[in-house]
């Protein structure tokens, strides 16, 4: 069973009028893909569709065996909690939660994903791996941009998701720290079978991942 399978996907962005057409794309469990392409080609839109945040105009979206295209908005939210880990661009932490609470936040978003008593221990291990082991009690406002980005990565991996959707997870990191982030993703992929789609403009990061995908090449030209 494919971890991700897209068939005849067509997405229209309601605000900008941007359209994306993807005839076919599939990824297996444990795959790690660097998704590349020029700005505005639809990389973030594709991640939003895979996460169920944005609905497709037509086509089939299968993620971890779930037909996302058939889900209602409420079901898509539950699907995200249960199957998807997301590293979002920008200020993507809750400022009034500590770093440790931000990491375990996916377990506190309502029914559908049972609280794991091991989550705090795993959160600490993830923070240790990402070089933030002694930052658990701090608030995001006291962290640098790079540190916040790494907390975001830890939060995305805490639930051992089937699919990790990471939008520029290393954009604010030095090469050494970026390697630590990629190592964490590799560890999740190896130990939990997480399929990772990493959007990046950094050739070094792309080269460090086993697979590369170039979105304009995958997409179908639109009139």
């Amino acid at each position, binding site marked *: 069973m494919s971890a991700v399978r897209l068939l005849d996907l067509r997405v229209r962005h309601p605000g900008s009028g941007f359209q994306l057409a993807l005839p076919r794309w599939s990824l297996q469990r444990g795959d790690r893909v660097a998704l590349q392409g020029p700005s505005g080609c639809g990389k973030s839109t594709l991640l939003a569709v895979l996460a169920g945040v944005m609905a497709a105009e037509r086509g089939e979206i299968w993620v971890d065996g779930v037909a996302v295209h058939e889900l209602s908005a409420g079901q898509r939210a539950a699907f995200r909690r249960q199957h998807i880990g997301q590293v979002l661009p920008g200020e993507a932490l*809750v*400022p*009034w939660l500590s770093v440790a609470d931000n990491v375990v936040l996916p377990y*506190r978003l*309502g029914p559908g994903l049972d609280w794991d008593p091991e989550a705090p221990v795993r959160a600490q291990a993830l923070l240790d791996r990402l070089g933030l082991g002694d930052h658990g009690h701090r608030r995001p406002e006291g962290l640098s941009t790079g540190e916040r980005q790494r907390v975001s990565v830890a939060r995305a991996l805490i639930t051992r998701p089937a699919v990790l959707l990471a939008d520029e997870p290393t954009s604010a990191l030095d090469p050494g720290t970026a390697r630590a982030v990629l190592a964490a993703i590799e560890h999740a992929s190896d130990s939990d079978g997480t399929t990772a789609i990493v959007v990046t403009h950094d050739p070094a990061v792309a080269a460090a991942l086993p697979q590369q995908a170039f979105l304009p090449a995958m997409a179908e030209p639109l009139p």
Partner: protein
Amino acid sequence: MTRLTRDAAWLAVRAIRAAPGRFCVLSAALGVALGLPLITWQAGSQAGEALRQRASATPVVLGAPGDTFDLVFGALYFRPGSGPPLHWSVVEQARSLDLVLAPLHVRHRADGVPVVGTSPEYFELRGLEASAGRLPTMLGEVVVGARVARERGLVPGHTLRADVSVLHDLSGEAPLTLAVTGVLASAGTADDRAIFTDVRTAWALDGSLHGHAAVEEEQALPGGSSEDHLRASGAVVPADPVVGGTQDFHLHGDLDDQPLTAVLAFPESQAAHDLLLDRAATVPGLRAVRPGPVVDELLAVGHRVRDGLLLFLGLMAGAMVALVGLVLSLGRRLRRQEAGLLVRLGSHPDLLPAMHALESLLLLAVGLAVAAVLTLAARAALAEVLS
């Protein structure tokens, strides 16, 4: 508790903990706004109840013509009246009726506390007993109210000096030393805040009943003295303390003319009650007043004022609740980005509304707790003031 509620509570508590100052200010403002109407209502009811109880425990007050409120509140709460005094003869005349009488003389103070001259019947009728020592039996002896004793550390055996109200009148009232023979058990009424003595001691404080200390040769006035006779002014050598020299004390003037502030009358039957009111109406210079209706009249005015105040405070509380709601609403608008993040991460559609509702409920609960604490504190403080 459902999973959704648990998660909403987890988030709400952390949101509050992140801004404790804002939460404290809002809940305190809410507590004060909700507490003030409660305190006002409570204070009105409590004061009204205390006044009614005191009034209903006193069937009739006899006094000289003058202001009714002055007479009733002077007799019930030991405030010196501004009207003309009643005379002892009234007590003697009223004894023929089926009554128990307690004369009151409230004119003097000791250490700022009213000294109430009365008779042993007063203690019996009010149900007052000494918790330490005994009630006064001799001239110059006093028993102090529970609160007076507590605040001033008085115990039987101590003495008090009567306050001097007229400094330049050598022939007038004498600042006598009063012997504390007992402390009254707390009654939770105005009796706790007074000093009680026999009415004759009160007259001694007036200066109309006094004694003379033995005059020594060196105190003799120049001229007029002989070998077996000394001329001295008793006014400059008043007997003080009274106790121990009572045999020399004597009254200047007629007993019937001695002043009283009021007389509490406790008719032993309805017939005696009616007869007293009837007779009092025919005696010149005498008035019989039932304290109950007087207090009710005062309370009716007080309740009208209280109701107006309650309306005003209720409007203020409503405005404060609306203001707190506005602050919460603006706060949520400022946190829209975080809300968007939670939705993006897959939060349950009802999680954010549940979290906001719990935040508001916690704020309201703490506000109500603050209001309750303020009301209870005000109640305790008022009970202390009213006792």
